[in-house]
């Protein structure tokens, strides 16, 4: 399948990836050749419905009870914040 530069830019935006012009060129080439390879499954005549789960799969339920998070774990998570104010995660504005 032929992939356009526009499609590459669209995908990069959906994936929240900033690509350099050189990367765009590279992924255009790579994706085209990979898709040429995977496209052969499109020729396969598959009958029947789209089976999403095999028959053995069953739902696993648990009670809806709050378990909380151990203090040490909470500390570890907060320590990993790139930016914070006190124990609060600090992020940039949306716009």
């Amino acid at each position: 399948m032929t992939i356009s530069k526009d499609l590459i830019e669209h995908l990069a935006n959906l994936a929240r990836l900033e690509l350099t012009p050189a990367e765009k060129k590279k992924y255009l080439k790579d994706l085209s050749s990979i898709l040429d390879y995977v496209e052969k499954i499109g020729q396969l005549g598959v009958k029947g419905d789209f089976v999403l789960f095999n028959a053995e799969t069953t739902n696993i339920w648990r009670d809806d009870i709050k378990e909380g998070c151990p203090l040490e774990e909470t500390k570890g998570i907060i320590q990993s914040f790139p930016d914070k104010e006190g124990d609060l995660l600090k992020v940039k504005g949306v716009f």
Partner: protein
Amino acid sequence: MNKTSIKQIHQDLLAKKISCEDLIKNYLNEIDKLDGQIKAFLEVFKDEALQEAKKVDLKIKNGEPLGTLEGIPVAIKDNLLYEGHLSSSGSKILENYVGSYTATAVKKLKEAGAIIIGRTNMDEFAMGSSTENSAYGVTRNPYDLKRVPGGSSGGSAAAVATNMSVLSLGSDTGGSIRQPAAFCGVVGLKPTYGAVSRFGLMAMSSSLDQIGPFANNVEDAQILFNVIKGKDKKDATSKDFQDKKNKTIAGLKIGLPKEYFAKGLDKKIEKNILQTLDLLKKAGAEIKEVSLPNTEHALAAYYLIMPAEVSSNLARFDGIRFGLSLDKEVENLAEVYKKSRAQGFGAEAKRRIMLGTFALSSGYFDAYYKKARQVQELIRQDFDNVFKEVDYLITPTTPTTAFKIGEKSSDPLEMYLSDIYTVSVNLAGLPAISVPNGMVEKLPVGLQIIGQHFDEHNLFSVAQYIEEINK
């Protein structure tokens, strides 16, 4: 230093032939001596390992009972969380990331008394077949330093192959345990989907990922597997299971899928595998050619399903809550995402995110992702059908022996083809083991045995038999 076994180490420890501290020192010395060249480890937990060893010595002195893996050094792949330790998944985006909890598999190792000796190099987020995609350099094949150790668990395979550790853990999404095990001449098991909890394993492709053992012999691999297996309420796909009834080699029905002995397979590897099959036949096994007709579509389906899940799983690396964040130099939230991801991810991760985003995007979903899932179902059915006729399938693990560093890194498709004999197993959720099966041109060959769901127990028996033949 000679390769040994868990049982032998325990005998020596109990007979006071060696202290656990000296044992661990010996392995740390091996790492000092060899890892400058091999580069299997990203970090060695030296002081901690020695501290733990002293505790084991105290236990022995006091006559306390020893755990299944007491005092045994185990290396863990860098995508497994270990509380208070760095886990980078071979990626720049997690360069300084410290786990806030421990993966269930690692926790079980610790509970069994194992000593975690270090974390091993891998392809970034387990994406690759050569360990060349790590942000922290290339691991080398112990048999030929110009060649790759395989991947993505290349560091874990090389660490065991060089006896820098007795055991290691890896993860296998499309062959990432079996292929490096084959390239490095060690035993590697990809367990049944659901046999081992993935809680604390950084997800690559959640419907395919499994954690599994590397060891220098089948018995040790089985001991390690038995420690990590079983239900964990923190992974809903995991479950407890009973060992199936023992089977014997005499009367065993072994299938040879003809699609795995076709174009692309190195003739010398084919000969090597067929020789072993002859020996199995002499031992009373029945060898039968079988067909898995949808094999030719497996890799294509895999390279749609896996990147689709990768693009979702890697969305969590957004520069907001942890990992690399470029939030200082930018204007708004979208810029934080885009720039952090652009700088944090390597080329293969970006390629697969792009491919997965494509497969899931509006207008292409039906033609690609949905089709791939249908093919996955056909592949499952292929295996179900042959397992009505035979007990096991035997194939080469890889079409070639270890390739040269750089040989396939410029052509992603060429690299993907090295997983051709391993991906179907993940798509069908089956267990498979790679056992060393001699050498071709001074490089190890791996023989893959594929079993039925949750029949690891008998899979190990067949593997052990093959190990015996090869002695």
